[in-house]
């Protein structure tokens, strides 16, 4: 087990920068999820930690030792690939034992390591099979097994579940979480799926455009997103945003929307009156009420079974509500909505959160 330090790490492909200086400290045994849209640099960062990509500048340390120039094989990390990358000409057992055989581990030790990993992952009856005779979920398990047999310093996961169907993904997600609770191994997990990020992570690193946007526990990111990107990326359905201007009223403050309505908010510091701001509220926090201060047109009602998503048009802009109240099924054509103050997020012109 090990801590991983990433210090001012940059990456460019020729003249094209992909990572603009990443600083991150991953504690021993921590489960870190790198999340962001395609092209945000999360996979590149992971591959740099693995040693599959060169570091343009900056430093990566595993257990305090600089690894920038170490070959992947000398970093003692294991990685689960999105494509699983199983060796097709080897049986499941051989796939799992390959790393140990390369290290010339004693036969009995290999057998017991493979055996216990197989039992942990329910692979016992499949050990003699070739990868092509396995289902997607089983292949995924073998890829996990290959990673855990040799008890590396850290586990790297590169979107390991994105090739599975939804049900299997949910199941494997839970298994990965259990496995981590069991092994307590330092893990870095890359995904673009914010649900995976929320459910698995001890801490989430939200990335966008090669820059770390926010690092924090899942609920920190959910409850106090640092900027518009994080606010919009975390949570599904995504946060609603409304443009307005910050106004100071008698006791408090408010956001004046384009139609003149003033949505009361708590006083903010670091922002002047009349500054352009973006108001954010999550769909599940919007309250439908006959006495609501804003009126919106109902465009679409989506029952998910668990709850209902209302697609509204507010001042001509799309706006969503998520509610568990089945009465919403018969809502429309107009509803009135209220925004509880404690659930409002305010972002300044640059998109940064103001409190």
């Amino acid at each position, binding site marked *: 087990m090990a801590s991983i330090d990433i210090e001012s790490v940059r990456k460019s492909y020729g003249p094209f920068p992909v990572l603009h200086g990443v600083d991150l400290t991953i504690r021993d045994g921590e489960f870190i999820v790198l999340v962001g849209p395609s092209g945000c640099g999360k996979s590149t960062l992971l591959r740099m930690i693995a*040693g599959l990509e060169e570091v343009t500048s900056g430093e990566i340390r595993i257990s305090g030792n600089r690894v920038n120039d170490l070959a992947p094989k000398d970093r003692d990390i294991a990685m689960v690939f999105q494509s699983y990358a199983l060796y*097709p000409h080897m049986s499941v057992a051989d796939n799992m034992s390959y790393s140990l055989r390369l290290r010339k581990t004693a036969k009995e030790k290999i057998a017991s390591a493979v055996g216990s990993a197989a039992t942990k992952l329910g692979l016992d009856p499949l050990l003699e099979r070739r990868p092509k005779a396995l289902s997607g979920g089983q292949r995924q398990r073998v890829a996990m097994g290959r990673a855990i047999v040799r008890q590396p310093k850290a586990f790297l996961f590169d979107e390991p579940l994105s090739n599975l169907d939804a049900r299997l993904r949910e199941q494997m997600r839970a298994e990965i979480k259990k496995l981590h609770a069991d092994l307590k191994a330092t893990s870095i997990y890359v995904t673009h799926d914010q649900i995976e990020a929320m459910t698995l992570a001890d801490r989430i690193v939200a990335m966008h455009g090669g820059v770390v946007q926010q690092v924090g526990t899942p609920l920190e990111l959910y409850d106090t997103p640092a900027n518009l990107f994080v606010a919009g990326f975390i949570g599904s359905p995504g946060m609603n945003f409304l443009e307005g201007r910050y106004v100071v009223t008698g006791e408090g403050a408010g956001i004046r929307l384009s139609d003149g309505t003033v949505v009361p908010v708590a006083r903010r510091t670091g922002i002047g009156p009349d500054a352009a701001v973006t108001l954010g509220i999550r769909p599940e926090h919007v309250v439908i009420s006959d006495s609501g201060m804003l009126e919106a047109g109902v465009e679409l009602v989506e029952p998910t079974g668990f709850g209902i998503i209302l697609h509204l048009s507010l001042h001509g802009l799309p706006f969503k509500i998520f509610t568990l109240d089945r009465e919403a099924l018969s809502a429309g054509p107009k509803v009135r909505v209220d925004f509880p103050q404690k659930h409002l997020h305010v972002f300044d012109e640059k998109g940064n959160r103001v409190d």
Partner: protein
Amino acid sequence: MRSGKLLLTGAHRLAILVYVVFALFPLFWLLKVSVTPNDLLYSEGVRMWPSRTTFEHFQFVIAHSAFPTFFKNSLIVSGATAVVVTILASLSGYALSRFTFRAKYWIVALMLITQMFPLVMLVAPIFKMLSPLGLTNSLTGLVIVYSAFNVPFATFLMQSFFDGIPKDLEEAAMIDGATQFVAFRQIILPLTLPGIAATLGFVFTAAWSELLFALMLISGNDAATFPVGLLTFVSKFSVDFGQMMAAGVLALIPACLFFLLIQRYLVQGLTAGAVKG
């Protein structure tokens, strides 16, 4: 509708049959002439099969001609060329497929250029080069020349096979603890067996039937390969067709055996199950 489809299938099969007959007929004729006794060769007219067959041509070719030497020489030259080319082409094909390096573009261009010349143009310069090195009239010389001419194409062939193998596999191996070379040898190479088999087969047959350079670089029977040797059955006043055809039939055997051996790898999709699917 149904009968129309049936007719179409029938026509399709017939076309294939015609093609196969057309392609195999020369081989059949080779066999036919090789078992026809000399006295019947010109006296029976054109017949599909002689009224009497004999193996005397085969006996003569094996026991009394220099054919076994030619055969052995051809086997050595073709086998060695195939192995040398395949090894070089695997390495260079892998490099072209996986690495980016300076001058890669120019190396590829140069290799393409070598394929553009009619070989006849190169006979004289090559002879000039090999002669002072003592490589004319030697099997080694032939292996070198054949290898040089086959490596570029074989490299492109191997590269296309490597391109078809996901990069994740060797990355996984390198994280598992392999060096790039070990990953190449233990993970990638076994998966390119179809490619290796195709390259071996292609180069072997190319070298096996090569006449031009063999004829120009080799004089005398000791180092002659079988295509050159076949010409010894042509004498000043006559052509001994029976023996020539018998030699031809014998010469087909190794090529057939070779393809029989490698066909398993040619058809097999070894990478199945490597990545998602």
